[in-house]
C-alpha cells in the first residue's frame, strides 16, 4: 500500500480543559495526487486542523502522519516535503519578492535555487515585480508571491488556507488554474480550506465537511450533491451548517 499524503487519526484539540473541543476526533486518509477540500463555517475547526497538520499546534489527542512521518516525533522530515499558503500570514514586507523567495529556498534547501526562483517568477507573472518590496504589492500580487513561496520546494503536500480569499474573480481564477497545473505536473496532494464552494467543486476530488470540530460528512463533490439532492455545493454547505439532514433536504 502506498504511503498516504496525510493520515489523520482521532485528531482532537481542546484549548482549555472543560472547553468544547475546537476539533473533535477527526480522522481521514488522504492519498497522494489528489486535492481535498476542508469545508465548514466560521469556527468549524478548519484553521485549527490545518495548524495541527502543519505542526504549529500540538493536538490534545490523536495523531497526524504527513508523507509517512509522524508529526509528533518527526515533523521536520515531513515539513521539508510540505508547504503552506495563507493570505492571513504575511511574508516579510520590506524584503523584495525575489529576496523572500531566496530566503525560503534556503530554508527548504532547494537545489539550484536561482533557476527555481526564476521559474516561479515567470510562472506567477512576478518577474516585473521581483525587485519590489512585498509590502508594496497589490492583494492579488501578494497572493501570487505567497503561492510562489508555497511551491518553492515543489512540495509533495500543499496546505492552503483560503488561497483566493479577497481576490477578484479574474485573479482567483488565475490562482486556481495555477494550482491545478501544479497538481497535474507534480502529482502532489493538496488540502484546501475554503469558503468558496465553486472553487472547491472545481479543484477538489474529495471534501470533508466540518461542523463544531467534527467531520459531519465526507465524499466527492458529486457524491455530496447526489446525497443531498442539491445542484451545487453551496446548498449542501447550507444544509449542513443549518442542521438540515439529508432527508429534510430531499
Amino acid at each position, binding site marked *: 500500500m*502506498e*504511503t*498516504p*499524503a496525510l493520515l489523520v487519526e482521532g485528531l482532537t484539540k481542546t*484549548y482549555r480543559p472543560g472547553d468544547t473541543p475546537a476539533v473533535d476526533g477527526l480522522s481521514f486518509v488522504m*492519498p*497522494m*495526487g*489528489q*486535492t481535498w477540500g476542508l469545508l465548514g463555517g466560521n469556527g468549524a475547526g478548519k484553521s*485549527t486542523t490545518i*495548524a495541527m497538520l502543519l*505542526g*504549529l*499546534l*500540538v493536538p490534545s489527542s490523536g495523531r497526524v502522519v504527513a*508523507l*509517512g*512521518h509522524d508529526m509528533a516525533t518527526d515533523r*521536520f*522530515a*515531513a*515539513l*521539508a*516535503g510540505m*508547504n*503552506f499558503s*495563507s493570505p492571513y*500570514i*504575511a*511574508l*516579510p*514586507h*520590506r*524584503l*523584495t519578492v525575489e*529576496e523572500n523567495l*531566496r*530566503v*525560503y*529556498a*534556503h*530554508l*527548504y*534547501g*532547494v*537545489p539550484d535555487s536561482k533557476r527555481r526562483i526564476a*521559474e516561479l517568477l515567470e510562472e506567477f507573472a512576478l518577474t516585473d515585480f521581483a525587485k519590489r518590496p512585498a509590502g508594496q504589492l497589490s492583494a492579488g500580487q501578494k497572493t501570487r508571491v505567497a503561492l510562489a*513561496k508555497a511551491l518553492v*520546494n*515543489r512540495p*509533495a*503536500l500543499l496546505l492552503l488556507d483560503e488561497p483566493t480569499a479577497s481576490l477578484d474573480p479574474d485573479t482567483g481564477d488565475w490562482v486556481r488554474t495555477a494550482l491545478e497545473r501544479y*497538481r*497535474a*505536473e*507534480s*502529482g*502532489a496532494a493538496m488540502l484546501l480550506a475554503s469558503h468558496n464552494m465553486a472553487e472547491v467543486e472545481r479543484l477538489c*476530488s474529495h471534501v470533508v465537511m466540518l461542523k463544531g470540530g467534527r467531520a459531519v460528512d465526507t465524499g466527492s463533490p458529486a457524491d455530496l450533491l447526489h446525497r443531498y439532492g442539491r445542484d451545487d455545493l453551496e446548498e449542501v454547505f447550507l444544509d449542513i451548517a443549518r442542521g438540515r439532514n439529508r432527508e429534510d433536504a430531499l
Partner: protein
Amino acid sequence: MTGTDDRGAPQAARGNDAAPTQGRAVTFAGGTTAFHGRPQGSPARRIWGLIFRHLALYRRSWPRLLELMYWPVLQMVVWGFITAYLAGVQGNTASVAAGVLLGGVLLWEVTLRSQMGFAISFLEEVWSRNLGHLFVSPLRPWELVAGLAAMSVLRTVAAVAPAMILAFFLYGFGVWTLGPVLVAYVFALMAMGWAVALAVTALILRHGAGAEALAWGVMFGIAPFAAVFYPVAILPAWLQPVALAIPAAHVFEGMRAALNNGAMEWGHLGWALALDVVWMAGAAWIFLAQFHSARVRGALLNIGE
C-alpha cells in the same frame, strides 16, 4: 512512474486520480525534479537563510546601519569627554580610571548590542508576522537561535567597532591593549547577551508583542549589578553575591585588573564563562518550554497581533 508521457507531462500526474509519488524524485519535461517527502538542505543553509533574511533589510537601508552605530558612538563621545575632563582636573592618576571607564563603556555596549541584536532580530519576525511561515519550514528551533545569534554578532560588530575606533583616535584609548584575552572577554559578554535575549524571546512567545519593551530595556536593569564602572566590592555586602552571579561582573573585574595592574585574572574569566553556560542552559530551557507552550496554545500564528 518517473517518466513522461507523449504530452510531456509526468506519468505520475494525470488528473485528480493521479498515482501517488511520495518518497521519490519525479522528473518532468524540461528536466525539473520534484522532491517528495524527504529531508532537504543542511542546518548551515537554513541558518544562512535566516541571516540572509535580516541582512537583506540592511543592504538597502543606510539609516538602519546608521542607527546601529549611533548609540554606541554617542555613548563613547559623552563618556570620552567626561573622562578627558576628569583626567585634566585630577592629573595622571585619573588617566587609568579614565581608561577603565572607557573600557567599561565599550565592553558593556558589546553585551547590550549582543542582547538587542538577538532579540530585535526575533521581533522583526514578530512585526512582519512571519513566524507562521518560519515554523512550518524545516527550520529547527536551535537553528533559529543560531541564526539570531549570528545576526547578533554581525550587529554588535557593526555597532561597537566604530565606537572602539573612535575611542582610539579621539581619546587615545585602545581597548585592544587588554591583549588577546579581549577576545575571550567579548565572547563571554556576547554569550551573556544571548542568554538574556533568549529569555526575552521566550517571554515574547509567552506574552506576545506586549513583552517587546524588555528587548530594549532589560539590560539597563542588569547594568547596576554588573559592576561595569565600579568594583563589586563597592556594592553592599548582601548585593555582592547577586553581582558575582552575573557573567559580566567577572569580565569587568578582570578588565579592571588588567588595566590597573596589567594582571590577568584567569579566575574571573573562568567564572564568567562558567556562568555563561549556566545562564544559557537556563535560558534555553525557558525558551524551549515557552516554544512548546506556544505550540500547545496555538500562539505561533497569532504573535504580533
